[in-house]
């Protein structure tokens, strides 16, 4: 206990001394740092903050130090998170490498793969994207058709991925490919790491209902990938794919919690837009709905914490489906409530008449609808819980 208290004090002092003031303000979308070869820092403090945090290994606090991590125990990582929240520190770096690829490389990667890829992820030098979904393989992911054929020292890869988030900005893609077309559909899949700096890879951005274009179609044509880039053995990809999905689901579950610096709470917005009486949100129905949401949100957070304590930092397991389902449905509900609070001020699209915060909420409301689709839909999560947690028959 005393050691943890000391760690907390040290962490707090370091953050206070090293987190630039502008990194303690709400983070606009265009200042989120994703890293990568082509990273641009609109705010120079973002770069400084990333470098300082990366030097301590705190972009990936629980990864081993030799791979660029902070080597922190889960309790220490939680303290770091709490102290960052306390100071409203922005997250210095976010990426699919941190959330998804890193954890499975740590578990299944060869020593050479770990050494080659993990530190670059930790420092934000390489940006990864996820090549899972295909036009005919969404929820039924194992129906994927992208082919990888071994030829000497290489695989020859051909296929068509879709909904590849940030493929147009990424440097590398981790891909599910079919390596044995004759095997049963789950048994002929491999997990491959592909450098996108290859003329055979083309991306075409797709626009979302929120107006943004964060995802793409990705075309892979006669791309040669070294055999060494295969993770976890030939035709072993489904195991790794599922493990990665657990990490992805855990991440998406916390979508409402991302460190974005100080933001006004639902209740504060409700008071501003709907009025207050005796310090209470004046609209009793709205107030009840906000309380219901916040109670669920808090119980959900407590459950995440309990799961972490029970697992002692271990892998998430099938219960990650619960977090993915509940967390994303909660986040959608939060945005519906925000819209209810803001009324017509949440209906602006661009231009004058609406504050930046209002327009951000409008766009994020639309974006939030994807939360229960990406990473496996809510229906699929409920299927997973029913089958793997409750043992209900097929």
């Amino acid at each position, binding site marked *: 206990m005393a050691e943890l208290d000391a760690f907390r004090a040290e962490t707090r002092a370091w953050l206070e001394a090293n987190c630039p003031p502008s990194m303690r303000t709400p983070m606009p979308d265009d200042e989120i740092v994703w890293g990568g070869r082509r990273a641009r820092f609109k705010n120079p403090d973002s770069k400084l903050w990333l470098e300082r945090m990366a030097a301590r290994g705190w972009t990936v606090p629980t990864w081993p130090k030799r791979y660029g991590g902070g080597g922190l125990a889960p309790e220490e990582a939680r303290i770091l998170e709490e102290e960052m929240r306390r100071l409203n520190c922005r997250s210095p770096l976010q990426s699919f490498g941190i959330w998804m690829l890193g954890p499975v490389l740590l578990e299944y990667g060869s020593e050479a793969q770990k050494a080659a890829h993990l530190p670059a992820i930790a420092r934000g030098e390489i940006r990864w994207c996820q090549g899972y979904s295909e036009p005919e393989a969404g929820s039924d992911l194992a129906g994927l058709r992208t082919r990888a054929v071994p030829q000497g020292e290489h695989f020859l890869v051909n296929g068509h991925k879709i909904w590849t988030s940030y493929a147009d900005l990424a440097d590398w893609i981790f891909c599910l490919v079919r390596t044995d077309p004759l095997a049963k559909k789950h048994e002929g899949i491999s997990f491959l790491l592909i450098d996108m700096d290859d003329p055979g890879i083309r991306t075409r951005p797709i626009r979302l209902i929120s107006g943004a274009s964060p995802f793409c179609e990705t075309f892979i044509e006669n791309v040669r990938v070294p055999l060494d880039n295969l993770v976890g053995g030939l035709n072993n990809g489904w195991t790794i794919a599922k493990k990665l999905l657990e990490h992805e689901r855990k991440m998406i579950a916390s979508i409402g919690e991302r460190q974005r610096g100080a933001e006004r709470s639902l*209740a*504060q917005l*409700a*008071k501003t837009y709907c009025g207050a009486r005796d*310090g*209470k*949100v004046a609209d009793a129905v709205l*107030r*009840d709905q*906000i*309380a*219901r949401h*916040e*109670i*669920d949100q*808090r*119980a*959900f957070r*407590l*459950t995440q*914490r*309990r799961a972490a*304590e*029970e697992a002692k930092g271990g892998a998430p397991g099938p*219960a990650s489906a*619960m977090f993915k*389902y*509940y967390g994303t449905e909660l986040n959608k509900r939060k945005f519906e409530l925000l819209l209810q609070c803001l009324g017509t001020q949440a209906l602006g699209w661009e231009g004058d008449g609406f504050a930046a915060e209002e327009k951000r909420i409008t766009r994020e409301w639309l974006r939030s609808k994807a939360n229960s689709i990406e990473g496996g839909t809510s*229906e699929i*999560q*409920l*299927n997973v*819980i*029913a*089958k793997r*947690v*409750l*043992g*209900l*028959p*097929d």
Partner: protein
Amino acid sequence: MALVLDSETALIRDTALDFFEKRAPVSALRKLRDDKDALGFSLPLWRQMAELGWAGFLVPEAYGGADYGCLGLGQVMEAAGRTLAASPLLATALIGASALALAGSEQQKAAHLPALARGERLLALALEEGAHHAPFAIAATARPSGGGFRLDGEKRFVLDGHVADLLIVAARTSGAPGERRGITLFLVPGDARGLTRTRTLMVDSRNAARLSLDGVELGADAVLGPVDGGADALDPVLDRARAGLAAEMLGGAAAAFERTVQYLKDRKQFGVPIGSFQALKHRAAAMFCEIELARSAVLAALSALDAKSSDTGALASLAKAKAGDAFFLISNEGVQMHGGIGMTDEHEIGFFLKRARAAEAAFGDGAFHRDRYASLMGY
């Protein structure tokens, strides 16, 4: 704040699970109901529970208790909730012991706590006067009379009220109904003159009574806690009651859920187990999530009570609201997913539905606790 049980508390939970499953299954509640048992619970069972230390879990060691805390008692209550066991756990071991231990004078503690811990004294809190939990809407009066007080008024939904040896009665010494200030707690012997107790038979077959206080004369030493400051004395007691009852409800919800999932696996229609139908699977999966959230909320509230942390009020409301919602949902879905058999008195799933509603009404339903939570959080 502990969200995972330490080994000692886990042992208490396992002991309690085994105890209630063997000695107080749902069939025991049915028997109490069918026999129209005058006490409403089994006294020998209560004595056994006292021997295990549970009656005195919240009683300080100096008064013969185990002083084990709310998290420990919560485990026992959760286990009792799984079999809908009727016992004085809530009214005596949790509420009565807390009121005396937290607000009692040296004399009052010495007079009652040792007997309570031995399972030989039953308590009941006489608070509610209306159809909804409203801790400050006290109209019963306590007027000065011959150096003491004279109590008049009506109380209802007094859990274990008709069998308690000692009642804790909230009455107004000043102010108007609805005001926090002006409420005073009194210790009233069950056989006091002017006190009439009428048992009310409840849908969940658990104990409750109406009290009529008609000029009940008490000495000044009957006052529990500060005169006019009864609401302050009551707050922490009610929060314990809410968290403890939430634990019981969690147990009920979890047991009803497990029974339902098992039925989904066993019952066949259209030649397949009904649990293979996705419409039922998804609802079962959603219920699983609600139980997990309720469990976290209950553990957090119980631990916060033991740690005396500053947000116990909010966490107790969180736990009561969440466990109440979960029990409501699951007991309803439980009946639905059992089909016709679920509607029969012979089947046990209906007992859970009945208990869910009664437990929700005690010490604040979801709407009450959402309102309180919002106020505590500043909106």
